[in-house]
């Protein structure tokens, strides 16, 4: 397992697209701040407000990091080398989630620090700072698991990119429809927007519970699909 994790991190740190996406996301998030700054109480929440929009970059990353690994048959080398499929999946998931959270949370950290240092903003949330950070991390985790699930399901770069991208636009559409509030409460992407606006209704605990439910369903769905599947 440790060897698999080391390998995944080696691949991650040597991949240009990972650093490219991190940089591009930081740039794009900073540009989008100009729009969202008036909607929220601080730079951190203004930055968080844009995270759902920037989710498409996590989808692109999942296609390149997971889908491409299947497409190039490089992930298969782990199986051939005698590694357990469950461990292969877990190692991939850990590296992928750390990468995705780095991509999506780095702007939050940078903008939060700028707000604190330059504008003397205090990071105050209605539910407490720790819970907010926890809810953000869990929501990001659940949100990023969706393209990972499809990457494991399709095992191909094209479909891993296309299907979650369609779902991304569908979720954006639903979050702007008549049932926007209800949809936002059950979708991790919507929850992030509600946290940014500090609308923790019904409660933060329910947000976290919903996210864990998503994580459980998507992870086990991916595991069951991968465990006995024939690989190219």
């Amino acid at each position, binding site marked *: 397992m440790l*060897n*698999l994790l*080391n*390998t995944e991190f*080696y*691949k991650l740190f*040597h*991949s*240009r697209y990972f650093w490219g996406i991190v940089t591009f996301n930081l740039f794009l998030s900073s540009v989008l701040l100009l729009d969202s700054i008036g909607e929220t109480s601080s730079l951190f929440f203004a930055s968080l407000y844009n995270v759902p929009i920037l989710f498409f970059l996590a989808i692109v990353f999942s296609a390149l990091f997971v889908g491409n690994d299947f497409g*190039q*048959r*490089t992930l*298969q*080398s*782990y*199986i*051939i*080398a*005698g*590694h*357990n499929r469950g461990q292969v999946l877990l190692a991939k998931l850990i590296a992928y989630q750390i990468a995705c959270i780095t991509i999506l949370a780095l702007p939050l950290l940078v903008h939060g620090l700028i707000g604190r240092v330059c504008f003397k903003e205090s990071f105050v949330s209605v539910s407490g700072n720790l819970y907010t950070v926890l809810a953000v991390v869990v929501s990001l985790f659940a949100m990023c698991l969706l393209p990972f699930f499809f990457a494991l399901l399709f095992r191909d770069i094209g479909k891993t990119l296309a299907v979650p991208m369609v779902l991304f636009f569908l979720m954006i559409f639903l979050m702007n429809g008549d049932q926007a509030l209800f949809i936002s409460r059950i979708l991790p992407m919507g929850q992030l927007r509600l946290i940014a606006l500090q609308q923790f209704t019904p409660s933060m605990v329910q947000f976290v519970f919903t996210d864990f439910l998503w994580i459980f369903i998507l992870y086990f769905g991916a595991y069951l699909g991968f465990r*006995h599947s*024939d*690989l*190219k």
Partner: protein
Amino acid sequence: MSSIILQAHSLTKKYRHTVALDHIDLQIEKGKIYGFIGQNGAGKTTFLRLVTGLAFPTSGTLGLWGKSSAKDLQEQRKRIGCMIETPALFPAMTAYQNMEIQRIQRGIPDKTVIEKTLNVVGLKDTGKKSVRNFSLGMRQRLGIAIALLNTPEFLILDEPINGLDPAGIVEVRNLLKSLNKEYGMTILVSSHILEELYQTATEFILIDKGKIIEEISDQELNERCKRHIAIKATDPQKALLVLEEKLHTENFKLMPDGTIRLYDYLDDLEKVAAVLSDAHILVTGLSVSGDTLEDYFLSKIGGSENVKSPKY
């Protein structure tokens, strides 16, 4: 200690509409070089994918070093090195980085093994050139290097000489032979270039339509592919009778395409021609030839008419 490396019993793999492997029974013994021969779609790669754990059999059992439970098989696969179809590489990375990934995931502590293995396949001086800029032959060499990284006891190579230049083919052949000789490495090679396989392998496994049609050693093959007189006649059945009566031999064979192979009178072609001519048999072809592995394989699958040909 058992000398059986791989044992398949009634191994079957079915896809939705096709039977890719049909009750395969096979044993691979330690220290031999096996040539795996079959047409496209015969089931070679499917078999190799089952062995390497990439796919699961529909029925039947597979054993590696005498172990056949799922967990044991997984453990035994650490002793295998393989390259199936095209090499699985990271195009944006260098040869060294690709090897480093494999070294880390296999938990090989010695970093110098990378340089050594790259040197063996002639890729030591590729420097910072990324794999996407490699030629087909260079990628193939890198795939072989990855398969050799852990100095496996059992090496599986699927079409290893695809894209290699003639010098590269000779190098790979010599490499496989030396690995087999020096380390006692058991090797299973599938290739479409049968003449090349003939020069490398000591055992041959012929597979067609998902079934093993024959397992044969190089000595047996040489015996069966021995020199003969190939006779093409308008009436082969009558020609056989004439040969039997006039030349007092039964050392001949009628091939599926109607050609007669006579294994006697190799130095007396004129006598054979005269006997047939006297019997008023029109001979359209008479020559001394020897079977190649390709001919042998074709004869086993029922002649060249059974070879898949493109339809326009």
